[in-house]
C-alpha cells in the first residue's frame, strides 16, 4: 500500500486517481473535525470538501516535510477558523448519530441529548479553543502535531489547550458529575 506522501507526490505529477485514494483514506477524519467544529452537517461537508480541493491546489508545491495528516489538518484549521469568523449565528443542522441497536430507545435518546450538550458546549467556545479541543480530544493529535496544524509553537498550543479546557469544563459540569 502506497504511503500518503507517495500518493501526494503522484498527485503533484497530475495523478487524479492518487488524489481519489487520498480522499478515501482521510475523508472520515476531515469530516469528523469539520463536524465537531461547526456542529452542522451541511457546513461540515462544504468545509471538508473545500479542504480536499485545497490539498489538490497545493499539490504542485507539496513537499513531504510533515505527515499528510498534519498537512490536511493545517488546511482544515485555516478553513474552519475563517469560516467561523465570517459566519452569522444560524440554526445548525446536526445529524442523528448512528443508531446503536444494542441501546433501548430511551438510551438512544439519552445519548443524543448528551451529544447535543457536548456539541452545544463546543459551539459556545471561541473558534481557536474549539479547534484545539477537537484536534486533541477527537483526533488525538499530540502537542507537536497540533502546533504544526495551527501554525503556533508547541508551548503556545499547550497554553491554548489549557485555556480551552478551562472554558469548556463549566459547560460540561453536569456530565462530569454523571
Amino acid at each position, binding site marked *: 500500500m502506497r504511503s500518503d506522501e507517495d500518493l501526494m507526490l503522484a498527485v503533484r505529477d497530475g495523478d*487524479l486517481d492518487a488524489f481519489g485514494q487520498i480522499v478515501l483514506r482521510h475523508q472520515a477524519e476531515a469530516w469528523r473535525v469539520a463536524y465537531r467544529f461547526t456542529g452542522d452537517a451541511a457546513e461540515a*461537508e462544504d468545509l471538508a*470538501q473545500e479542504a480536499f480541493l485545497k490539498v489538490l*491546489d497545493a499539490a504542485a508545491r507539496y513537499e513531504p516535510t510533515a505527515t499528510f495528516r498534519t498537512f490536511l489538518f493545517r488546511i482544515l484549521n485555516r478553513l474552519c477558523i475563517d469560516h467561523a469568523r465570517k459566519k452569522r449565528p444560524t440554526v445548525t443542522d446536526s445529524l442523528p448519530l*448512528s443508531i446503536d441497536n444494542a441501546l433501548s430507545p430511551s438510551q438512544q435518546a439519552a445519548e443524543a441529548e448528551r451529544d447535543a450538550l*457536548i456539541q452545544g458546549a463546543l459551539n459556545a467556545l471561541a473558534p481557536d479553543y474549539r479547534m484545539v479541543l477537537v484536534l486533541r480530544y477527537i483526533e488525538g493529535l499530540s*502537542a507537536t502535531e497540533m502546533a504544526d496544524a495551527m501554525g503556533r509553537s508547541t508551548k503556545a498550543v499547550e497554553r491554548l489547550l489549557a485555556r480551552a479546557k478551562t472554558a469548556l469544563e463549566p459547560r*460540561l459540569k453536569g456530565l462530569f458529575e454523571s
Partner: protein
Amino acid sequence: MHCKDVQGQLKAFASSQVRVDTRQRIQAHLTECAACRTALGRIDPVAGVLADVQTPPIPPGFAARVMTAARRRRQAESGPTWDLLRWWQLTSAPMHLAAAAVLVIGLAAGWMMGWSAAPSTGQMAPAGQSDPLSTYQLDVLSEAPNGSLAGSYLTLVATTNEGGY
C-alpha cells in the same frame, strides 16, 4: 483490549502520546467500557467526557462529490477542450449532416475563390514576347525606372525559358 492494558496507558492517551493504532484501539474500548472512561475522567475530566463521543457517519457519496469537483477544477485549469469523437457520439444525425454541409460549402467556396483569382488569359504569353504589365496586370509598376526593384521584378517576370516559365 483488556481494561488492565487500557488503564495502564490512559495517562499517555490523555496527553496524546500513544501511536495512532493504539489510540484507535483504546478509543474503541472506551466507547464500550464505562469503568475505563471513569478512570480516564479522573486523569482528565474533559478527556473522560469526550472519550466516547460519536460523530455521525460521513454523508454517503462524499468522496464522489469531491472527485467531481476536483475533475472540474483540473479541467478549468487546463482550459477548454473539445473532443471531436465525443461530440460525434453525443449529437444527432441532422447535426452530422449540417456539419458535413458546412464543410462541403466551405471547401467549394474556397475552390471558387481560387479559380476566380486565376489569370484571365488562361495562357502564358509566348516565349520572348511576354508583356508582364498586361499579362499579370502589373500596371502599377509601369512607371518603374530601370534599375529599381520594381523594374528588376518586371524584367524577371518578363524573362522566360524554354519551358515557358
